C-alpha cells in the first residue's frame, strides 16, 4: 500500500525523485557536441532565473539556455506524458500492449502536420504543431466513434486504434507521395521519426503545463485505476464511476500524447515500455506506479536525447530511432519475462 507509508518516507521519496530529475536535466544540458561543465549549467540557470550575475562565456550560456535546457525540459515532459498515457491505457484497457500510439493519435498527428506542411491547409495561419494537434484530435475522435460502434469492449478500442492508425498512415503516405518534393519528403520523414532539434522555450510553456496537469489528473485517479485490476465490472462494484473515469483518463492521455507529438513528432515505445519497467521497480499499485513511470519516462527521454546528439559526431539522430533501438529489445525482454511468470 502506498498510502499507509509514513508521511516522512513519502516526502523523502518525492524529494529524491525531484533531485534525480534535476540532475538528469543538468546532465542533459551539459552533454553535447561541446561539453559544458555542470557548474556552468547551474550558474546559467541562476543567472537567468534569479539574475545571480555570474560571469560566464556568453556562447556557453546561450547554448545552455537557448538550446539544450529547453530541449531537456521538453524531452522530460514528453517522456513523462507518454509514459503516463501508457500506464492509463494499459490499466484501463487491461492490455499490456496498449500505448498512446495504438489509439492512432500519433498517426493522426502526422497526417495533420503533413497536411499543413505540404498541402498548405490553413493558408499559413496554422503552424505544423497546431496541424498535428488537430490531426491527433480528429484521429482520436474517429477511433472513439469506431470503438463505441464496435461495442466498447476491451478489444474494440484496440482494433479501432489499429484501423485508425492504418487509415491515417495511408493518408500521410498519400499526401507525401502526391504533393511533396524530395526535400520536403525528407524533412517530413525526419519529423515523423521524432525530433527535438527545433525545440525552444515557447514549446516548454506548452509541454510543461500539459505534463503537470496530466500527472495531477492521473494521481487523483490512482485508486480508480487500481480498482480496474479485475476489469470494469469489478471496478464498478467497488464504487468507481467507470464511464466518467474512462472519459477523463482517455481524454487526458489523448491530450498529453497529442501535445507532445505536435512538438516533437512521433516517438514510439516510450508509452509501451516505460510503464512495464516502472512496474518491475515499484509494483502495480498506481499510487507509486504513476509517479515512478513519469520519472523514469522523463529520465529515459533526456538520456535518449543526449544519445541522439552524441552517438554520431556532428549529426543529430531522430530521437524516435534511439527510443526504438532501446525500446524494442526491452519490450521483447519484458514480454518474454511476463510470459514465463504467467
Amino acid at each position, binding site marked *: *500500500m*502506498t*498510502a*499507509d507509508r509514513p508521511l516522512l518516507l513519502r516526502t523523502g521519496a518525492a524529494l529524491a525523485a525531484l533531485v534525480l530529475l534535476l540532475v538528469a536535466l543538468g546532465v542533459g544540458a551539459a552533454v553535447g557536441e561541446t561539453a559544458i561543465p555542470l557548474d556552468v549549467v547551474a550558474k546559467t540557470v541562476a543567472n537567468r532565473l534569479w539574475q545571480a550575475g555570474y560571469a560566464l562565456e556568453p556562447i556557453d550560456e546561450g547554448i545552455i539556455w537557448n538550446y539544450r535546457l529547453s530541449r531537456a525540459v521538453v524531452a522530460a515532459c514528453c517522456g513523462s506524458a507518454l509514459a503516463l498515457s501508457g500506464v492509463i491505457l494499459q490499466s484501463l484497457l*487491461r492490455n*499490456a500492449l496498449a500505448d498512446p500510439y495504438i489509439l492512432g493519435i500519433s498517426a493522426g498527428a502526422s497526417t495533420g502536420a503533413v497536411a499543413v506542411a505540404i498541402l498548405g491547409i490553413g493558408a499559413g495561419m496554422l503552424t505544423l504543431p497546431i496541424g498535428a494537434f488537430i490531426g491527433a484530435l480528429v484521429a482520436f475522435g474517429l477511433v472513439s466513434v469506431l470503438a463505441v460502434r464496435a461495442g466498447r469492449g476491451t478489444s474494440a478500442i484496440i482494433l479501432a486504434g489499429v484501423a485508425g492508425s492504418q487509415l491515417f498512415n495511408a493518408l500521410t503516405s498519400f499526401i507525401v507521395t502526391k504533393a511533396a518534393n524530395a526535400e520536403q519528403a525528407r524533412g517530413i520523414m525526419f519529423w515523423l521519426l521524432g525530433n527535438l532539434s527545433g525545440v525552444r522555450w515557447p514549446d516548454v510553456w506548452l509541454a510543461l503545463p500539459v505534463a503537470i496537469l496530466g500527472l495531477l489528473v492521473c494521481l*487523483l485517479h490512482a*485508486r480508480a485505476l*487500481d*480498482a480496474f*485490476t*479485475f*476489469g470494469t*465490472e*469489478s471496478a*464498478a*462494484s*467497488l*464504487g*468507481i*464511476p*467507470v464511464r466518467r473515469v474512462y472519459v477523463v483518463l482517455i481524454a487526458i492521455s489523448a491530450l498529453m500524447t497529442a501535445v507532445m507529438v505536435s512538438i516533437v513528432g512521433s516517438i514510439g515505445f516510450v508509452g509501451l515500455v516505460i510503464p512495464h519497467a516502472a*512496474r518491475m521497480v515499484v*509494483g*502495480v*499499485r498506481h499510487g507509486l506506479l504513476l509517479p515512478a513511470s513519469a520519472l523514469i519516462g522523463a529520465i529515459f527521454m533526456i538520456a535518449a536525447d543526449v544519445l541522439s546528439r552524441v552517438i554520431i559526431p556532428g549529426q543529430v539522430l531522430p530521437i524516435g530511432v534511439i527510443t526504438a533501438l532501446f525500446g524494442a529489445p526491452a519490450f521483447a525482454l519484458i514480454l518474454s519475462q*511476463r510470459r514465463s*511468470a*504467467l
Partner: protein
Amino acid sequence: MTLAANGIYWSVGGAAILSDVSLDVRPGEFLGIIGPNGSGKTSLMALLAGIRKPQRGEVMLDDKPLLAHGRQAIARRIAFVEQQAETTERITARQAVELGRTPHLGALTPWSKADDAVVDRALEEVDMTHFAGRLWHTLSGGERQRLHIGRALAQQSPILLLDEPTNHLDIGHQIGLLQLVREQELTVVAALHDLNHAAMFCDRIAVMQGGHIVALGTPAKVLEPQRLADVFGITVDVERDSAGGCFIRYRRPDPRPAKLKLVAEAR
C-alpha cells in the same frame, strides 16, 4: 437495508434476457437463485448489483432507485463477486483483498490502520492469511475465489451478491465457502448451480427459467420433483427430513432410443 427488483426487463441485441422479474430480498436472508444455463441468473445479479441498468422496471435499494444512490454509496452497501474475475497484473493476495476498501477511501480519507485491520480480518475469514504475500498468478482457482470473497468481506457492505461462487472449487471448498458466507451476518443473494447446496444453505430459493422467476420460497417448498423436471429436464427424488430440510437425489435418465445414438448408427 432492503434490495428489490420491480418488474425489471433486460435484453441484449433485441433478445430478452430478463422480462418482468420482481424480487424482494429480505434483510439477513440467504437467497439462492437457481436455474439452467441461460436462464438469466448472471444478468439478474448484474442488475441487482447496479452494474447494468434495467431497460424497464427498477431495482430499488431502501425504497430509492438503486442507481440514484451513486456508485460509491452503492458499493458501501452492496458487495458483488462476479464469475471468474481474472487479472494478469502481478498483485499479491493481500492487495487483491485491499481493493475491497476502495469505496471507503477518498482524497480526504486515505488508507489507515483501521483499513489494514479490516483486510487482516477478511484474509483470516477466508483462511488466506498464510498466502497474503503470494502473487495472484501462483494461486489456485479455489484460492483466488476465496480472495474474491475476502475482497467482498473487506468491503463491509451489508448485502453480498455472489454469482456462482463455487465454480471450479472442489467439494470441500464449495461447502466451506458457502458455510463461511452463511456465518456472516449479511444479506446474501447467490446464484448457485448445485441444488443440494441451495437446499442446505438457503433460506429461500428463486427458480429462474427463460428470463422469468417461476418459483420463489423455502427450499422445501420450491424444490419439487415436477418443477425440477420442468425447469432442468431432470428426474429426481426429493427426500425430506423432519427439520424441514430436503435432499435431492438425481436419477439416471432412461436410455435414449437407438436412432439418437450416433455410435449405434455408425455401426
